[in-house]
């Protein structure tokens, strides 16, 4: 087992690290401390740079124009990309591009023409609509939005909550119950145009993330052509479930990157700050916080890279992805909390990024399945049939 990075991985990581420090961090000095977007001219300039570096659209499969990088390397890049103030939810402010709704890579050719390719060209934006007021972690049971077939169309009624980007999107993936008696085998995924009559963005949901909000959606007799069913009727749960598992790896990586940056800032600060005639770094209380940070970061990093490695090899990685998400989000929260403690009053001001990381890191223990659900997934796996 070789735990060392390859020469190529070393090079890519160093390139992205330099990009973040030289291009992204300086721009943040003049942005609002909660900003999650760059000025359009800056964004355009930096997108051109990432394209020139051959690192644009990292998660897009090579056959669709993305760079050919394995998942472990992409996870290492994700750890680097989040090492700045906005990094947790807006890594590098999106200038590395993204795959958008990866589920569309499995769409029909007609759907790809209408939605996937325009999305990859940046002409259309999409949203992912799974969570409902009745819950998000258990889509098989929580989905109450209903769809019934009417000729060549489906009629959808219901609503979604905590949906990001729906108010700015051109289309979205909406999961609805198409057979009320079949549990997880009665959910279908629809591609929905946001200009469809009956599609409503009811309100903004304000959260601890001060710059980016979620939305609440309502569907009233919204008609969707049968040609817009993604995958098969009543097989939408698998699409949702696969997305939830895959998303946990980059989600964990972002937390690790922020933890690394916070820890690095603390390591620079504590030898300089003096209390009672000696630097903070000479205090055992501070040293132990730094040691605990180091252990938390290394633990989270290896668990996450292992999950990425298994996924890359085509092995079952659900348990490992759950562990990565659980460990990284909880470790990240502890690291940022300790760093705030070391920085004292400055740690909670908007002069430093810790307060933003603290708020956003708290959400991470809930988003993409809370810690308790991750533990449930792991327990189900290690106990196997005896739990069922």
């Amino acid at each position, binding site marked *: 087992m070789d735990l060392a990075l390859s020469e190529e991985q070393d090079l890519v990581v160093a390139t992205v690290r330099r990009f973040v420090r030289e291009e992204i961090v300086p721009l943040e000095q003049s942005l*609002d401390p909660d900003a999650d*977007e760059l000025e359009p001219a800056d964004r355009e300039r930096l997108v051109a740079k990432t394209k020139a570096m051959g690192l644009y659209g990292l998660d897009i499969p090579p056959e669709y124009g993305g760079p050919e990088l394995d998942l472990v390397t992409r996870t290492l890049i994700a750890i680097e990309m989040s090492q700045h103030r906005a990094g947790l939810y807006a890594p590098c402010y999106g200038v590395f591009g993204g795959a958008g709704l990866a589920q569309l890579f499995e769409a029909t050719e007609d759907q790809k023409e209408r939605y996937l390719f325009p999305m990859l060209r940046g002409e259309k934006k999409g949203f992912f609509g799974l969570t409902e007021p009745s819950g998000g972690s258990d889509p098989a049971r929580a989905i109450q939005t209903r769809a019934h077939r009417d000729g060549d169309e489906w009629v959808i009624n219901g609503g979604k909550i905590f949906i990001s980007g729906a*108010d*700015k999107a051109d289309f979205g993936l909406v999961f609805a119950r198409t057979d009320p008696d079949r549990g997880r085998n009665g959910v279908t995924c629809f591609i929905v145009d946001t200009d469809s009559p009956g599609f409503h*963005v009811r309100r*903004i949901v*304000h959260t601890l*993330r*001060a710059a980016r909000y979620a939305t609440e959606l309502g569907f009233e007799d919204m008609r969707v052509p049968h040609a817009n069913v993604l995958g098969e009727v009543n097989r939408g749960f698998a699409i949702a479930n696969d997305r939830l598992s895959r998303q946990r790896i980059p989600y964990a990586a972002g937390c690790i990157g922020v933890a690394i940056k916070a820890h690095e800032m603390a390591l620079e600060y504590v030898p300089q700050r003096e209390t009672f005639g000696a630097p903070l770094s000479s205090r055992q209380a501070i040293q132990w916080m730094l040691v605990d940070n180091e252990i938390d970061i290394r633990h989270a990093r290896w668990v996450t890279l292992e999950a990425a490695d298994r996924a890359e090899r085509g092995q079952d990685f659900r348990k490992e992805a759950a562990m990565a998400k659980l460990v990284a989000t909880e470790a990240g929260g502890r690291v940022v909390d300790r760093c705030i403690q070391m920085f004292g009053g400055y740690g909670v001001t908007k002069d430093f990024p810790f307060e933003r990381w603290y708020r956003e890191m708290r959400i991470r223990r809930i988003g993409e399945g809370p810690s308790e659900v991750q533990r449930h997934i792991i327990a189900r796996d290690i106990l196997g049939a005896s739990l069922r």
Partner: protein
Amino acid sequence: MSLTLDKPWRSRREPPGDLDALPGHMGVFELGDAAGGVLFVGYAGGRSRFGLRGEIAAALERLPAATAFRYEVTTSYLTRYQELLMVHRAATGELPPDNAPMPGLGRLSPG
């Protein structure tokens, strides 16, 4: 929380010194005309000197047509700012006259 900013309007001709007593917090504000219309929506963010006090004073100076203002203290100033603009556009079809166009602004249909 109401979607609109429903705090009472205050005259820009506050007694001397009253503008100086506005909060230094982060938040959102609106400037209005004599008919109660909204002319401008703004916010005081994490880098605003003197928070709402400074931003409202600067905006009143910039827009002499504004006769009144109202504000709301909030740490979610960026999302609340966008929400107020979206609600205004949903109700009137356009942004307040003194706000610059925002191409990336989302769409609300509060119903």
